[in-house]
C-alpha cells in the first residue's frame, strides 16, 4: 500500500517526462504545469481523466515536488520570486495563502470563477483560501484530526480532555496500555496541536490583519494543558520527538490507548495491523474547557494560480476538473485526502471507506485555520521552538516569551530561532 505510490509515479512520469521541460506548448495546446499533489497515490489517473475531458483545450502536466511541506514551499518561493513562468497551477499547503497572496505570487480568483470554486464547499476550508477578504485559492482537500482510541481498553470514550487524561491514568494503574499519543516534536504538527487547544479555548495568536500579537489568558490555559500532558505520566516518553509516524507507531505497537491524529490512521492501520485496526475507535476531539466544543485545526491543500502563468484561465479550468467532487472522492479513497465538497460526505462509497465521516463533518463545520498571516512560517517556527519540549513549558513565562517573539516577528525585528 505504502509503496503502490511509486509505481504510480513511474507510469505518470513516462507521460510527463517527454514534455516536462518547463511547460513548452506543443501543437498549440496550452500546457498547464501542475506542481503539488501530483504524486499523490492514483493522481496520475485523475490528471489523465481531466486531460481527456479537456479535449485539446489544455493539457495538464503533473510535476513532482519534494514530499515535505518545507521543501515544497522552498521550491515555490524561489521560483515564484524569480517570476518563473513555468509554474501554472500550485497545490499549496493551506498555511501559505496569505504569504503568497501578499507577495503577489498568486492570482485573486474573482467573479463567476470564485462562485464556482466555493460552491458545494465547506466554509472553513474556504477560509484557508482567503486573504484580506479576497479568494486566492480553490479548496482541493482538507483535513482535521480526530481522537483515536482502543475500543477494548476504552469502551466509552471521554468527551473532555481531563477525562482522557484521567482514563489514561486509570489504565496505567491497571497495568494496561495507557499512552495518550500526541505530536509533540518541534515541527509544524506540534503547532497544529497547540492551535487546536488554543482555538478550542477561544484564543488566537494574532489579530485578524496580523498586525498585533494576541497572547492572553487563553494562551496561558492552552500552555497549561500541554504542560500537564507532559507531566501527567501518561504521555509517551518520546512525546517531544513524536511526529505523525511515531504517534501512529505508538498505536500500532500497543503502547497507546489514545491518539490525536488525522483520519489516515484507519486505512493505514488496516494495512499495518488489521487486528488493531478492528479495535480502533474514533471520536470528536475532546472538549479542552468543559462545555466548550473543541475546534479542530484545518489541514489540507488549495489550488492557486501563479501570477506569472501564461494560461491562467486554462489553469483554473484544470483545477476545477482536478478537484471535481468525483475526483475528490477518488483521491479520498486512494490517497486518504478528505474532500472539501459537502456532497462527497453524503456519498455511500465515501461513508463506507470513512466510517468516521460524521465526526469529521462535525469537526469541519467549526474548524479553524492556523493563524492567517503572511508571516505564518515565522510564527510557526517561533511557536514550535518556544513550546519545545512540552515538559519545559512554564505557562506564564512561556506565554510572555511567545508574545514578545511573535511581536518581534511581526515588526521584522530579531531573529528566528
Amino acid at each position, binding site marked *: 500500500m505504502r509503496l503502490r505510490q511509486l509505481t504510480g509515479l513511474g507510469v505518470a512520469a513516462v507521460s510527463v517526462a517527454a514534455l516536462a521541460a518547463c511547460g513548452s506548448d506543443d501543437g498549440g495546446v496550452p500546457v498547464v504545469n501542475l506542481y503539488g499533489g501530483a504524486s499523490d497515490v492514483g493522481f496520475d489517473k485523475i490528471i489523465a481523466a481531466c486531460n481527456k475531458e479537456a479535449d485539446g483545450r489544455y493539457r495538464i502536466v503533473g510535476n513532482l515536488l519534494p514530499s515535505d511541506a518545507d521543501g515544497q514551499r522552498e521550491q515555490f518561493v524561489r521560483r515564484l520570486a524569480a517570476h518563473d513562468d513555468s509554474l501554472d497551477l500550485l497545490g499549496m499547503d493551506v498555511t501559505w495563502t496569505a504569504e503568497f497572496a501578499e507577495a503577489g505570487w498568486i492570482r485573486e480568483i474573482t467573479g463567476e470563477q470564485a462562485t464556482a470554486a466555493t460552491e458545494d464547499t465547506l466554509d472553513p476550508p474556504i477560509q484557508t483560501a482567503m486573504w484580506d477578504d479576497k479568494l486566492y485559492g480553490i479548496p482541493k482537500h482538507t483535513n482535521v484530526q480526530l481522537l483515536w482510541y482502543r475500543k477494548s481498553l476504552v469502551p466509552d470514550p471521554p468527551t473532555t480532555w481531563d477525562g482522557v487524561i484521567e482514563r489514561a491514568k486509570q489504565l496505567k494503574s491497571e497495568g494496561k496500555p495507557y499512552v495518550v499519543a500526541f505530536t509533540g516534536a518541534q515541527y509544524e504538527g506540534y503547532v497544529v496541536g497547540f492551535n487546536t487547544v488554543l482555538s478550542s479555548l477561544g484564543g488566537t495568536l494574532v489579530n485578524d490583519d496580523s498586525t498585533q500579537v494576541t497572547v492572553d489568558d487563553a494562551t496561558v490555559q492552552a500552555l497549561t494543558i500541554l504542560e500537564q500532558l507532559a507531566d501527567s505520566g501518561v504521555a509517551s516518553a518520546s512525546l517531544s*520527538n513524536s511526529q505523525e509516524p511515531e504517534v501512529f507507531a505508538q498505536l500500532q505497537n500497543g503502547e497507546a490507548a489514545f491518539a490525536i491524529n488525522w483520519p489516515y490512521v484507519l486505512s493505514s492501520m488496516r494495512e499495518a495491523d488489521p487486528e488493531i485496526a478492528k479495535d480502533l475507535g474514533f471520536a470528536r476531539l475532546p472538549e479542552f474547557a468543559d462545555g466548550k466544543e473543541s475546534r479542530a485545526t484545518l489541514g489540507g491543500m488549495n489550488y492557486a494560480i501563479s501570477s506569472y502563468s501564461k494560461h491562467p484561465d486554462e489553469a483554473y479550468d484544470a483545477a476545477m476538473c482536478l478537484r471535481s467532487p468525483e475526483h475528490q472522492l477518488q483521491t479520498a479513497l486512494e490517497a486518504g485526502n478528505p474532500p472539501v465538497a459537502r456532497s462527497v460526505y453524503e456519498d455511500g462509497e465515501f461513508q463506507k471507506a470513512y466510517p468516521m465521516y460524521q465526526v469529521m463533518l462535525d469537526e469541519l463545520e467549526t474548524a479553524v485555520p492556523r493563524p492567517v498571516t503572511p508571516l505564518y512560517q515565522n510564527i510557526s517556527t517561533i511557536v514550535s521552538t518556544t513550546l*519545545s519540549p512540552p515538559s519545559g513549558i512554564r505557562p506564564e513565562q512561556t506565554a510572555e516569551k511567545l508574545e514578545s517573539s511573535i511581536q518581534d516577528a511581526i515588526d521584522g525585528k530579531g531573529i528566528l530561532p
Partner: protein
Amino acid sequence: MSTVAPPPTDAVDPLEQDDEAVAIARQRASEGRRAERRLGLMLCAPAVVVMLAVAAYPILYALWLSLFRADLRTPDENEFVGLSNYVTVLSSPIWWQAFGITMFITVIGAAAELVLGMLLALVMHRTLIGRGLVRTSALVPYAIVTVVAAFSWRFAWTQGIGWLAGDSAPLTDRWPSIWIIILAEVWKTVPFMALLLMAGLALVPEDLLKAASMDGASAWQRFWRVTVPLIKPSILVALLFRTLDAFRIFDNIFVLTNGANGTSSVSMLAYNNLIKGLSLGIGSTMAVLIFITTAIIAFVFVRLFGAAAPGGSEKR
C-alpha cells in the same frame, strides 16, 4: 621527506668561479623562473576561472545582502541598514546558544574523528589480511547519504520503534541528543579522515621506520617521531576540511532533533531565517558570520601547522 631527500641542488653552483659562466647561469635561471611563473599561472588558471565564475557573484551578493533589510517576498522594499543585521544577530542569545553547541560538536567531533580516523587509517594501511575488504568496507559509512543515515539513527533511537532505544527516549533530552548527533557525525566522517591520512601514510618510507626500529624506537615513538611529522600535511588537510564541515553541521541535526531542546546549530539558524523565514538580510548575515568563524578556524590551523600548509614555505 626532508629527512631522506638529498639536499636541494641549486641551479647555480656557489663554488663556480668563472664570471662568464655565472652570468650565463644567472640568465638561464631568470629565464627559468619566468617560464616557471608562466607555467604556474597557466596551470592554476582553469581552476581559478571556474571557481570565480561560479562562486564569486553568489558570495559577493550574500555579503551585500547582509547589509540590507531584505525579504524575498518584498524585493522592492530592500532597505540599507549598514551593520545593524550584525548587531541583531550578535546580540541574540539564540545565536550564541547555537554557536556554543556548534563549537562543542565541532571540537569534540573533530577530535574524535582525528583519533579514530588515524586508528582506522593505520588499520587500513597495515592490516595483513583482507586489506581490500577492510579498505572498501571502512568507506561505506561515508558513502551513505547523510539524510538517510541520520533518519536511520533517529528511527533506531525512537522509543518503542528502534532497536537501540528500548524504553528510553534519548532524543528527547538535550545532552543525549547532542551525543547522538556527534555519534552520527563521527560515524559517517571517520572514513573521510582515514582515507586522507592513509594516503599520507602511503608515502612514509618503510626503510625509515625500519631504521628507527633498529635504533630501538618503540612502536609509539616510531609513530610519534617518524610517521606523524611526515604526514603532517595530510593531517592538516584532513583536520581542516573536517573542522570546516563540522562547523557547518546541518543534515544530522535537521533530521535527528530539528534543533529541539537547544540542539540547534548555526547553520540551522541560517536555514530557518534564510529559507523558512525568507529574511535574506538576517540569513545572509548569519552565513557571513559562519564564514568568518570558519575563516578564523582555518587561519589558526594553517598557523599551527606552519610550513606544512599548502602554499607555505617551499623548501624544507
